[in-house]
């Protein structure tokens, strides 16, 4: 047994840290926060040149065809940099296409995604804000050799910059996955300004949008299973990203505690401060164990994978928030300012907490998995 990154995985992680430090420093993050979409074409190109937009995409579709542990290693560094933009949204959509799409559809979407020429997102949540697929109400009506969409989706990440929105809708008792171009007739995208400005949310309205039968993803397959599988992949990647954010907060806080002087001593020499830092380490390392295990279990198709993803997300949701909380507390007043970069991570911890389901949602999933009598 070896629960550690391999040499190539470590090298990949180090190169990700170096590239993101160069291309996505805190100053750049702040500039992008202030833009409408938080997207920067130059930065996106840089990610694509590394192959990251296609890291999980099979080689047949022009990707690197690597596993989730490699993706987690890169995502951890993205979280450390608080990378703004549509990376995770595109990854989620790509995972959905990979699972639900025909060979033609996979080629159509995954090749340009891997090449960095296409960004995508999944339009899932509605008014209930529930991540449970059973709570979805938007009905796709059949007609004209395809489906017609009328209604709205909320909290859709990166819809302002995604070229394609994969809308999850109801078709009676089953689900359908309908890819819609952002610019298609009848599609309106309106920002929903939210706390974390590095990850923009949108309301998407569909006013009689037609999707031809040939466009429908997973028409003859298991759309629900594909959605679940893709959600698990995206959730595991998000958890790794959260670990990177926690690590940044921990490192920054410990550094500050070593240098900030009060009563003639560094504040980090006081046990009240030391113990908060020790707890931050414990939570960060525990989150790391859980996130990488989820990534490994999904890659290996381990029977525990589904529970592992929920264990990771439930833990990371609480832990990132708590680590960020303590980070601000140790910093004192400066940590509460707009000027200090802690605010970026404090807000990211909150938006990540609810994305793909919060701790309560995932604990109930765990309960279903471990308490059933089967």
């Amino acid at each position, binding site marked *: 047994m070896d*629960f*550690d*990154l391999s040499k190539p995985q470590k090298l990949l992680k180090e190169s990700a840290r170096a590239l993101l430090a160069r291309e996505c420093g805190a100053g750049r993050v702040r500039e992008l926060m202030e833009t409408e979409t938080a997207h920067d074409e130059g930065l996106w190109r840089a990610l694509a040149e590394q192959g990251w937009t296609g890291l999980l995409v099979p080689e047949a579709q022009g990707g690197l065809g690597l596993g989730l542990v490699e993706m987690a290693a890169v995502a951890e560094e993205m979280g450390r940099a608080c990378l703004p933009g549509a990376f995770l949204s595109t990854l989620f959509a790509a995972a959905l296409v990979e699972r639900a799409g025909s060979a033609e559809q996979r080629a159509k979407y995954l090749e340009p995604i891997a090449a960095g020429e296409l960004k995508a997102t999944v339009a899932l949540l509605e008014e209930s804000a529930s991540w449970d697929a059973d709570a979805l109400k938007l009905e796709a009506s059949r007609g004209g050799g395809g489906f017609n969409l009328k209604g709205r989706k909320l909290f859709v990440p990166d819809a302002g910059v995604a070229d394609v929105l994969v809308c999850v809708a109801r078709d009676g008792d089953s689900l359908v996955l309908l890819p819609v171009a952002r610019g298609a007739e009848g599609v309106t995208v309106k920002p929903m300004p939210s706390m974390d400005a590095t990850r923009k949310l949108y309301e998407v309205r569909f006013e009689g949008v037609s999707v031809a039968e040939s466009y429908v993803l997973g028409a003859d397959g298991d759309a629900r299973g594909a959605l679940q599988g893709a959600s698990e992949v995206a959730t595991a990647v998000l958890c790794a990203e959260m670990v990177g954010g926690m690590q940044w907060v921990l490192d920054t806080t410990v550094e500050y505690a070593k240098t900030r002087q009060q009563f003639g001593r560094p504040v980090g020499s006081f046990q009240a401060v030391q113990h908060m*830092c020790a707890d931050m380490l414990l939570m960060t390392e*525990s989150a790391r164990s*859980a996130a990488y295990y989820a990534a490994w279990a999904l890659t290996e198709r381990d029977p525990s994978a589904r529970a592992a993803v929920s264990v990771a997300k439930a833990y990371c949701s609480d832990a990132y928030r708590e680590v960020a909380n303590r980070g601000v507390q140790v910093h004192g007043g400066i940590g509460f300012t707009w000027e200090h970069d802690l605010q970026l991570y404090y807000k990211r911890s909150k938006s990540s907490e609810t994305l793909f389901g919060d701790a309560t949602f995932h604990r109930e999933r765990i*309960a279903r998995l471990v308490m059933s009598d089967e």
Partner: protein
Amino acid sequence: MDLNLTPSEREFRDEFRAWLGENVPAEWAGGGGGSEDRAEYIEYLRAWQRKLYDGGWAGISWPKEFGGRGATLLEQAIFQEELARANAPQLVGTIGLSLVGPTIIALGTEGQKARHLPQILSGDEIWCQGFSEPNAGSDLAALGTKAARDGEDFIINGQKIWTSFAQMADWCLLLVRTDAEAPKHKGITCLLADMHAAGVTVRPLRQMSGDSGFNEVFFSDVRIGPSQVLGEVNKGWTTAITALMNERANLGTGIQVVFKRQLEALIARSKTVERDGRPASEDPLVRQKLAQAYLELEILRLNTNRALTSLSKAGAPGAEGSIQKLYWSEMNQRTQQYAQEILGPYGQLKEFDKGAWEYAYLRTRGNTIEAGTSEIQRNIIAERVLGLPKSY
């Protein structure tokens, strides 16, 4: 990253599992809850260790030349897991096997090795650890048990406390002050003390859980010869740290299986106790708590596997032990509190599930104090892992 067992690790596990299947006493069947102080019970446990010894399963981490198997860290973890999985009796000689033996191997004389190591392995001689004192707990180096020189010999006077296994021990790894003038870390000596010597008195301490797991030990003019010094005179602190590092390198691998069994019992119980006229297991709040207990335990398992990997690569035990101890002790308290909330007044009954929940709740209260308080573990993490300045 590969979390599967290697073929040789699997082989080791299967071999020990098969041995346990044939050798765990049938009448044991998970017995032996509380009292560890009955003579008969002690004899029973000695016989069990003897059986392990005869099968070649005692002291597996020790080098082969001293009667061990030279087991890897991961094999040691598998060993603990399998013992717990088989619900085997506890190892009465655990302090000798995991703490005293490795320290004698590291620092002892040839005579000490020959005299003590075989007896530790076979369980013929049980050890306790005379470290803590009434006024030296977290600040262990403040210990005051006196060792006055009388010719070559030492005359010991003083008191130790919280000494597990003292009521059945034949020997004690004893820390004493040999130089009262020197700075506190530099006047300590480590002795191998005969618990049957004249002047040694053991008084069991009854815990709030009702049982007597640890003791007070009084030394009154106890004579100990110079051949019984482990390490060097006045360098006992180094010996103590060697011993404690070995203690903390045991990452709590066996206890996890016990936790897992308790959680499974709690989940089963949640289906039989009621809440608002329905099984508690259908109550969303109960489900949240059980899921939280499950995920915390799962993360303990994962943290352990990561720590084992990192210890295997680094060679020497680091602060991993402190992180593990802090995590599992606080987790265990939370989980037993969930159990109490789910079971209500049943959880406090001495006859409900043989008093297991009542006992566990009280016993866990000690977890964040014994073997280094949570505060000491946080200090260690802050200073040794995070590099923060010392607070004292």
